[in-house]
């Protein structure tokens, strides 16, 4: 078990190294004149050249990357070129915001899709058809469109929620709920569609198994059969999809955070990438890679807990 975790962590480190190298290369290729972009059109050529020198942009690529890497290994990711904020502070302060959204959306989509999936699989008939239509709609309508509609109706017209911004839970739980509810709904919708379909299919499969008939014949209530036995068997594939979606939600958060002006990782990623804020983008790449590696490891362990068949001997 410990050897398994160590091996996964080691491959994670290699993965992070590869990803960061590729990202640096891409940033460099697409970078252009970053010093000019920082200073704007009113700066003189001499000022721009001085800035480029100060940032090390006049050095060869491998020297720049080597310097970044040697600092990164010691935990120093530098400061943003466009806001002067230390990169580690920029990421940690925003990580909790994005996690609020992503974890919230994951929990909501897990709960809602279990309810809908089980309903569709056990009732069948018109309930099933309605759920199917909703999931197809959920797939088809892009999250940002839902977000825009939600803002217009619930924030601007009805004024129930806030149209933009974010309030920390610790500052005001009510304010937090007023700012995160709409983004979470917008984010969760796609996830609900995917996981509901998966649970519906797995539950239908599981219900046909012999052990279900046996359990029923022993007089167990339908609720007990479905929620205690069938769902546990059907949960594995759904969990795998949920895990993929959890990582995918970080991508979805990029757009949702832009629309709601939420100071999360997604928003800062969009701004930093278009500006060419290399230290900040590289910090984000490393942070995201770490999250992906860790989440995948946790999911693997959870799978083993749920399903003894995938456990390593």
């Amino acid at each position, binding site marked *: 078990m410990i050897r398994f975790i160590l091996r996964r962590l080691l491959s994670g480190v290699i993965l992070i190294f590869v990803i960061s190298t590729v990202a640096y290369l891409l940033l460099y290729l697409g970078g*252009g*004149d970053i010093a000019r972009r920082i200073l704007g059109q*009113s700066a*003189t050529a001499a000022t721009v050249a001085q800035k480029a020198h100060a940032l090390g942009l006049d050095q060869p690529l491998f020297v720049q990357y080597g310097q970044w890497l040697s600092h990164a290994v010691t935990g120093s990711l530098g400061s943003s070129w466009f806001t*002067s*904020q230390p990169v580690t502070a920029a990421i940690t302060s925003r990580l909790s915001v994005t996690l609020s959204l992503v974890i919230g959306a994951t929990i909501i989509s897990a709960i809602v899709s279990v309810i809908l999936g089980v309903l569709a699989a056990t009732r069948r008939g018109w309930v099933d058809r309605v759920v199917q239509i909703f999931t197809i709609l959920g797939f088809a309508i892009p999250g940002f469109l839902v977000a825009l509609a939600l803002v217009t109706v619930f924030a601007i017209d009805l004024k129930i929620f806030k149209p933009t911004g974010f309030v920390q839970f610790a500052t005001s*739980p009510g304010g937090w709920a007023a700012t995160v509810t709409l983004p979470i709904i917008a984010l969760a919708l796609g996830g609900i569609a995917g996981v509901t379909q998966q649970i519906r299919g797995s539950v239908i499969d599981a219900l046909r198994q012999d052990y279900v008939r046996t359990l029923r014949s022993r007089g167990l209530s339908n609720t007990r059969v479905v929620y205690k036995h069938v769902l546990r068997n059907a949960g594995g594939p759904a969990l795998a999809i949920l895990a993929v979606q959890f990582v995918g939600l970080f991508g979805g958060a990029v757009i949702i955070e832009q629309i709601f002006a939420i100071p999360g990782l997604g928003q800062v990623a969009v701004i930093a990438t278009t500006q060419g804020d290399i230290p900040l983008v590289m910090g984000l790449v490393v942070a995201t890679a770490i999250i992906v590696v860790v989440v995948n490891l946790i999911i693997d362990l959870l799978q083993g807990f749920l399903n003894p068949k995938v456990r390593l001997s």
Partner: protein
Amino acid sequence: MFRWKRLTAIAAVVALGLTGCAAGGSDSSSGTPTTLTLGVLVPATTFEASGLNWANESPYGQAVYDSLLRGNPDGSIAPNLATDYTYNADKTVLTLKLRTDVKFTDGTALDASAVAQNLLRFRDGTSPNKSYLAAVADATATDTSTVTITLKASDPSLLSNLTRNAGMVESPAAFTKADVATNPVGSGPYILDVAKTVVGTSYVFEKNPNYWKPADVHYDNLTLSVFSDATALLNAIKGGQVNATNTASNNDLDQITAAGFTINPLELNWTGLMLIDRDGTSNPALGDVRVRQAINYAFDTKALLQAVGQGYGTPTSQIFPKTSVGYDPALDSAYTYDPAKAKALLAAAGYANGLTLQMPSTSLLGTAVFTLYAQQLKDVGITVNFTDAGNNYISDVLAPKYGSYYFILQEDPDWALIQFSIAPTATFNSYHTQNATVDALIEKIHNGSQADSDQAVKDLNKYVVDNAWFAPWYRMQSSFATDAHTKVTVQADNAYPYLWNFTPIS
């Protein structure tokens, strides 16, 4: 069914609870507002005084620092930290007398030594506007309240520059602090609340309780919220989350006024073509004044104003702003749309069969504009070959890689505008066009008497228009939006109104 009812009931309770919280959280109560929330389009690059940006970033600096001089809304200059400012005869030594009752928020006194150190740090710092103080040879504290600035050569822009970021004064004790870029120590009307601030997103300030000029502080709290996305900004306006904000474009003005906001218009930029290769280095055609004039006549500027600028702006042929002493209303229509005349001028220059120009394009400035103006040039026989410069548009045009290109350029006060767009060394005179007439006029503007200088600005403006150094289409309207609780006086020479010109309406 029973379970559904219970679920609905819970949902209703939760929704009601949220409504209660949301309503309790907003502070739009009756009476005079004590909090000002401003929308800004860019985050603060840095709060370190020696690296401060200006224009759209000006409210960050103005919140925490005082400037030596103050810019009035019309661009004229008034005392501030410096109560008196006098030049010697040839304007190479400027003496500033300082107030003696000003303290930084760390408790130390703002004295002549602090001012002198700040001036030299700005000159040698990393601000994009560090050239504001390029003429400064030295700055010394003659006594605790007198600063003497010696110049390498006189600079007509210096006083104006000292009203901006170049004149801001930071506590010397903060110079060496590790967090100098994000935790400023100044003497300004507000103090940055570092704990409540989310860098890059929202900057929260509290009133400086010991501010020396309390009459200028109209609010107890100030928040600068950054909106990099136009949709988010529009939603914040509709949701009443900002009291006032700058706008990135005029696309949403109808919706902004429908939300109860007032638009405060201002003309800060001109847009059109830069015809910078006036010696014909990259393309001999551009060296011929008739070709450059033909390009001016080829543009239906009113149609371009409607199509590109949604009608918000004023057609013009000159690059000097209305506030300039050189401004001439007649020059706004020096070149009116006349394709026949354009063709005749091209024929006279030997291009009866047309010519081809190389120009850059970028999606950053929109896509329609390039198609539209290329079509108008095509109509008189000029073909434009575009190269997509993407993110490198500005560096490519300044390189210079092109003899002519589309641009949006700021209209600074006269001397700054000349140094920026016209002088041989100007950033946007990338081919360094120079001739005796222009040199003589610039010399007169620099060193002549006030009357001579004013006349020379007029003459220079006319010369540049007659010789078609540019092909302006129109002055663009910038739109600053304010809600029903907020009054503002816009600043003639800055993209963002100055902070003390925001006042609450009770």
